[in-house]
Structure formats: structure tokens, C-alpha cells
């Protein structure tokens, strides 16, 4: 089996500091891959460079062996991208937004109509399909962004913080969709802060900090005998011991 994503020596500097520093990472085809790291580790920057949103200063990003920055149009057809920290065209209604995304990939009207209806049903958004996305709650916005990422039936899903502010029921539904996607041969990459979720959901994981990958492999390899959270805290460090300041303690 080939690699769904292969990153070699990716580097991005903002001003003087390297947000991502010669990062290399391999995501095998058909894997459910978790990318975890503390705030500011460079997860979003890495995923932006891997999906063709942010041009790297150096390094190569391959999707199914296609160079994202040399043959962007072909590579981007394979990717379903839920980017973090970008807005949506939120003056469109939910239904219009998914349709718009599908049309950007050139889907014909009949296919699109069926897929939009399916996605709205799967993500429990049917009742709000005609509302403007600007009026959606944070969780609903995440779900509609996910629907927009799925509509062109990509081979590789790259989801930056897909579960942030999503309610437990919707989160479980989204997990079912992603599980089904992986079982059918697709590849999913999620970034998350929730170790618990990654441990339960993913089969592969990479822990990154300060723009580098500290460890990567199957979840069982990475966590060893303990759980993922313990391993993460050991690797990343930064735990504080001691009590809160006196003025914050009520009793």
C-alpha cells in the first residue's frame, strides 16, 4: 500500500521563528491518523501546507504521490479539507454553501442534488438547510464546513479540529461517517486536543511540538503500556505542579 500523504522536510517561517521546522511525516493509505500537539505546535500550519493553502518555504508535500505544489489542481481533487481558522462564505445558506463547494469541483447538478441531500441528513442539518450560515451556532458551522469538505468525495480527508464545539450526538455521528469512510479505503487525518478521542478513534498518531514531530506510529506503538495522554505529557512537558493562587481559592 502506498502513502496517502507524505511530507518531506516541510518548513515555514513567520518573521524569524520557524512555525514548522523541517517536518517529515508519512500517513499510510487507509489509516485513521491523529495529529496531536499543544497550542502553537504548528499543526494548522502543517496541514495548510499539506493541502495547498499555504506555500512552504522548503520541503515537499505529496498526496497519493502527487506533488501538491507542482500539480495543485490534480492533488486538490483528492483532498477534502476542513481548515481551522478560516471563515466560510457565511452569507450563503447551508444548502447553498455545500452546493457552491461541489460546483467549485465541477460536480453536475443531478449528482450534487443527491449528495447535498445526503450530507444534510447525515449531519442532522436538514431543518436548517435554508438558514444563513452566519446564523449557525459554532457546532453547526463545523458540521456544514465538514459537509462542504466531503461533497466531492475526496480520497483523503484532512480535518483540522473537526470536533471543536460539536455536541456529543453530532460528534458520534461524525465519527460513524469517518469510520465508514476509512473502512471503504479512504484516509482520514484529524488534528485534535482530545487525547481520549484520538486514542479511541484513530489507528495511527503523531505527536508534534514546536514545529517538529516528536513521535509517530500506530496508536499502540506510541502509547506503549500507558495511555496516550500520559505519553503526550511526558513528551511535551510543561505540566505545572502546585496550587492555584490564594485569591482564586474560595474555601
Amino acid at each position, binding site marked *: 500500500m502506498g502513502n496517502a500523504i507524505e511530507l518531506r522536510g516541510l518548513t515555514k517561517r513567520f518573521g524569524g521563528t520557524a512555525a514548522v521546522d523541517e517536518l517529515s511525516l508519512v500517513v499510510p493509505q487507509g489509516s485513521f491518523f491523529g495529529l496531536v500537539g499543544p497550542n502553537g505546535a504548528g499543526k494548522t500550519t502543517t496541514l495548510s501546507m499539506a493541502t495547498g493553502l499555504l506555500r512552504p518555504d522548503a520541503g515537499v508535500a505529496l498526496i497519493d504521490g502527487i506533488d501538491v505544489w507542482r500539480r495543485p489542481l490534480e492533488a486538490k481533487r483528492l483532498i477534502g479539507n476542513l481548515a481551522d481558522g478560516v471563515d466560510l462564505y457565511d452569507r450563503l445558506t447551508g444548502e447553498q454553501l455545500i452546493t457552491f463547494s*461541489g460546483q467549485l469541483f465541477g460536480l453536475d447538478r443531478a449528482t450534487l442534488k443527491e449528495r447535498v441531500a445526503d450530507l444534510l441528513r447525515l449531519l442532522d442539518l436538514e431543518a436548517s438547510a*435554508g438558514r444563513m450560515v452566519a446564523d449557525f451556532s459554532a457546532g453547526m458551522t463545523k458540521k456544514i464546513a465538514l459537509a462542504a469538505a466531503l461533497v466531492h468525495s475526496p480520497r483523503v480527508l484532512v480535518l483540522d479540529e473537526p470536533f471543536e464545539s460539536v455536541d456529543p450526538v453530532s460528534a458520534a455521528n461524525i465519527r460513524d461517517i469517518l469510520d465508514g469512510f476509512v473502512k471503504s479505503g479512504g484516509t482520514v487525518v484529524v488534528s485534535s486536543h482530545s487525547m481520549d478521542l484520538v486514542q479511541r478513534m484513530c489507528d495511527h498518531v503523531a505527536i508534534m511540538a514546536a514545529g517538529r514531530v516528536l513521535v509517530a506510529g500506530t496508536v499502540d506503538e506510541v502509547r506503549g503500556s500507558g495511555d496516550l495522554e500520559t505519553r503526550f505529557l511526558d513528551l511535551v512537558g510543561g505540566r505545572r505542579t502546585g496550587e492555584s493562587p490564594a485569591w482564586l481559592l474560595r474555601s
Partner: protein
Amino acid sequence: MVAALLRLRFRVLANTLGRNTIQLVAVILGGISTFSLLLFVLLIFARVSIEPPEAIQVTVVVGGSVVLLGWLVVPLMFDGVDRTLDPAKLSRYPVRTSQLMLAMFFVGVLWVPGIATVLAGLGTGIAWMSHPLSAALAVVTGLVGVATCVVGSKVTTTAAGTLLRGRGAARLGLAALVVVVVAVPIAAALLRDVPAGGSAFFARITAVIEALGFSPFGAVWSIPGRVALGDVSGALVASGIALVTLAVLVILWRVALAVSMQSRGEGPARASRGGRLGPLGLLPSTPTGAIAARSLIYWFRDSRLTRQLILIPVLPALMLMWWLLFDIDALAFLAGPVVATLLPLSVFAGLSYDGTAFAAEVAAGVRGLHDRVGRAIALLVIAGPATAIVQVAVAVIIGRVGDLPALLALALGTLLVSVGVVSVSSARIVVPVARSGRNPFSAQPGAATVSVVGSYVVTGATGVLAAPVSALAVVALVSGIPAVGWAALAVALVLGSAVTLGGVIVGGRVLDASGPAVLARLRLIRA
């Protein structure tokens, strides 16, 4: 509290400018041009001070009224109002509305346009140098006048912002406002038929200035002059009008603030099933079709763009009013070209309005050409009919239907050329604008300068490229030969289409090369 709010505002300002060199340069350039203008105004005041009081009075009253009108209207047309002290952001702190209003007032005064206006207001004292009592009064009335300017601009931006952000019923209010603005010139047209004896032109001008002195715009500026001319009762009446104006504006501002605070927050979670795709269901299901449809939807749903549509009826109405006052046909038939320039001009940095949502296009690997064609189609679908209708209506009103080919050549040629120019400029230029859903009249410091400088460049390029069309049209209008008019129209359509096509192709290439870089810059602005 007010001092703390002011410190906060200037801290934010310093941090923003420290982070963004281009913005800092824009602020400095804006400051230099504003203060050059101020110097010019003060020189005029000094020059006029040796003239008879009647002449001084006309200068001060007309100048003051224009400045006040400017404060009310200009922020609606350009991005330029600072909203660091947005009530929404401050709602979690214990701040009274009156403290907030006071702080917002001083923020309005303590920035380039505010300081310049204060100095110009005090400068009216220079104009009255040879009348000591009036000069002393002018210092006081100048400050009252500046206060009226600042409070007035707060009223118009808060009210218009609330109206545009609202949906449904609020739009009706806006429509009503537009109707009123359009109705004014019609009323003026009726007045025009009142026979004026002797030199009709100067009689009309004198009457206008006389009326201005007792209007809310001019009353405050007319007080020192009335005293100098010995018109004590007139001075008292004008003082009354000035104070009532300021008081009414303060009350209106308070009401507008209260309404804007209530209309915020989450709307009712109204269920609304789909099935209405709008333009997305009508245009072809391709990247170009999708982008054209989305742009069309945005022209009507995004308040930052919708406010530009208000200009379509308002500007021609104002130009017709000037035509009535001065009887120069050129003022009227420039209405079409003005609309044809301003609508494309409002998207000369169009990707700024997309913001980071533009990532959807980058992620889908949309070709630059498809993006440019889609946006150009949306622009032409709106601006094409608007321009044509305005120009035909103007031709009918001023009674020059025979010159219609030349007039349409002027308008449509300008439109097609502008669309081509803007297709290139907006592929590259990104300016800080208010984010979608915020008050559309809020902006970053310096953004006004970037918009103004950008506007000059884009307008200049349009003017140069459209020169052959304009020249032919002018010849046709002056000579009145129909064949020349038709030739101008043909040249306008052929040359204009060529420029649009060229602009779209070049813009597409630029966007292909710079798409991710533009997105990175949009992210930087958003953060």
C-alpha cells in the same frame, strides 16, 4: 473610566500600526494630505479676513456646511470609522452608555480627521480677525460645530450599520431613506420653476446660501457673521437651531446605540428547510458559474457590498440636483459613467471582502481565470443594467434623447473598461476591511487611505484606457452628428469588451501565481 477607554483605544492603535507597516505608511500619507488641506483652508480664511463681512460669511457658512455634510456622508462611502470601542466588545465590562458615548466622541475627535476639523473650526476665528467680538464667538461656535460633526457621523454610521445588518424590516427603513434622498432633487426641480427675476443664476445661489445659514448644516457657522453684520435676532435664532441640532443628534445617537445593542446577539433559531438555491441553481454548475452566483448573492446579502448599491440611485439624484442648480448638462450626463466607475471600484480589492473564506477556492484548486470570469459576470449583471437605466433616465430628464448613443457609449465604455481594470487589481490588492457581519462602516486605521489611493490608481487606469471612447463621445455631443455618436457606441463596446477580456485573462494569471500568498495575507489581516 473614559480615560481608561481612551488609553485602550490608543494602545490598540499603536499595536496595530506597529504590526503592519503598510497601514502605518497609509496613516502617515493620510495625515499629510489631510493637514495640507487644513493649511489650505486656513490660508483661505486668512485671505478672506480682509474682505467685507458678507464675503467672509459666505466662505465660512458654505465651508462649514460642506465639512458637516462630509462628516455625515463620507464615512458611509469609504471605510474610515474606528470601532475599537465597539459596544459589543465592551459589554462584559461595567461601562455606562454615557461614558461609552463620551469615550467614542473623544476617539472621533482625537484622530487625524477630528484634529484637522477642530483646528479648522478654531480657524474660523482667523477669518473674523478684523471683527474681534465675532472672532471670539467663532472660537466657541467652531468647537460646537466640530462637536456637531463628530456626533452626526456617529449617528449616521451607527444607524446605517444597524439598518444594513438587520434583515427584512430594517431593509424597508433603508429603502425609505433612499426614497427621501431621491425625492429631494425632485422637490428642487419643482422649486426651479419658480420664476427668478434678473440674474436668475446668482439669485438662486444667494437664496441657497441664505437658506443654508438657517439650516442645521450652516446655522452654527453663521452666528459670528450675523453678529458682525449686526443681525442680533438672526444670531439668536441661528444659535437656537445650532443647539437644538446638536441636542437632537446626541439623542438620536443614544437611541441608535441602544437599538444596535438590542439587535445584536443570536437571532431566533428559526428552522428553515432548504430547496432555494437562488442564483446557484440558475447558473451553470461549474466553478465559474458557482463563483458568479455566489458573488451575485453577496452583492445583495453582504452589507459591505449592499451599501454600494445604495449609491446607484443616490449619486445620479445628487448630480441632477447640481445640474438644476448650475444648468450645466455635463453634470447630468456624467451620472452614468460615475455609476459605471463606482460599482467596479467598490470591489477593486474585492478579495478583501471574501476574507479567509477565499480558502474554499484555493482548497478546490479553482483556476484564476474561472474566478475572474465569475466575478466579472456578477459585476456586469448588476452594473450593466444599472448604468444603462441611469443614463437613459438622465437623457430623458435633461431632454437630450437624441444624444443617447453617445451618452450610452460614455457610460457602457467606462463600465467595461473598469471591470477589466478591477479584474486585475483585485487579484493582487488586499486591504483591511470590516469582517463580514460586523458593522460595515467600521474599519482599520489607514484603510481609508489605502482605499483612496487604490481608487485613484484604478480610476486613473480606467480613464486612460477609456480615453478613445470619451474623446469620440465628446465630439459627438459637441457636434451633434448622429453618426459620430453611433461610432462612439461601437468603439465603446468593442474596446470595452477587449479590455474586460484582457483584464480577466491577466487577472487570472496573477491569481494563479498569487492565490496562496493572497490567502496568507487575508489570514494575517483577519487575526
